[in-house]
C-alpha cells in the first residue's frame, strides 16, 4: 500500500510537535457526480491513532467535515529525540494505513 501519511515530529523545548498530512479523498456523501447526478458515497477517515512508545498520545474521531487530504497537528511531552511515533488511520470502508516516524 502506498504510503498515505506524511508525518514530522520535532522536539521543541520539551514538547514534541507533530504535524501530519494524510492523503485521502474524504468524500462526504453529500456531493453529486456531475455526469450521472448520483450521490458519491461517503468515504472518509473515522479514526486516527497516534502512539509514542506504545502509549496513545492522541486518538481522533473524525466526521465527514474534515477537509480532503487532512492535516493534523498536535503537541505532547515526555518524548526524546530518536523515539518512534506511530500514526495510523482507519476509514469507513475499513481501509487503513500506518506509518512510523522518528522524533527529531
Amino acid at each position, binding site marked *: 500500500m502506498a504510503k498515505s501519511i506524511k508525518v514530522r515530529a520535532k522536539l521543541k523545548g520539551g514538547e514534541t510537535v507533530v504535524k501530519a498530512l494524510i492523503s485521502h479523498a474524504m468524500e462526504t456523501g453529500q456531493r453529486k457526480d456531475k455526469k450521472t447526478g448520483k450521490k458519491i458515497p461517503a468515504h472518509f477517515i473515522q479514526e486516527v491513532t497516534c502512539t509514542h512508545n506504545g502509549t496513545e498520545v492522541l486518538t481522533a*474521531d473524525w466526521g465527514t467535515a474534515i477537509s480532503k487530504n487532512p492535516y493534523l497537528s498536535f503537541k505532547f511531552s515526555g518524548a526524546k529525540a530518536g523515539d518512534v511515533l506511530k500514526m495510523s488511520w482507519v476509514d469507513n470502508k475499513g481501509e487503513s494505513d500506518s506509518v512510523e516516524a522518528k522524533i527529531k
Partner: protein
Amino acid sequence: MNTNRRSFIKRSAAVSALGVAVSAGLITPRTVLAAWPKAAFEATDVNGAVSGTFGSDAMADSGDITLKAPEIAENGAVVPITVTSDIAGTEAISILIPGNPTPLTATFKMGGNAAGFVSTRVKMSKTSDVLVVVKAGGKLYSSKQEVKVTIGGCGG
C-alpha cells in the same frame, strides 16, 4: 516498504481465511468502528452531537480556550482551525460546526502526555460559528467564533 507490504498481505490473508482473526496488536477495523460514535456524528443538532460525544451537553463558556480560525474563509472546503486549551487536565477537544448538515466534525482525545492543542482543516457548507468543546476534569467548556464562508465546501 517491504515489511509493510508483508504485514499487509499477512493481515489480509488472515482476514479472508478466518473472517475476524487478526494477530494480536493489530487494530481490526471492526473494533475501531465500534468505538466511533456514529450517533454523535450523525446528529443534526449541536446538543445531540455534544451529548452523543460526552454524555452531557451542559457547557460553560471559557476564556481559557483559544480558537484560531479565519474571520472570512474564501474556500469553505479548507478552513484551517487551531484550538489551544489552557484548561488543566484537558481530556478531549471537539470541533463542531453548527452550520453543517451534521455539526460534529472531529473529537480529539488526549493521552496523558498530550497538550491541549490541535490544529486541522475542516469543511464548512456556509457561514457559521465554529464551536469548540473541551472536556476537562469531567466538565465541558466551550468557545466559539464565527467564520464567514464565501464558497461552501459541500456540494460539487
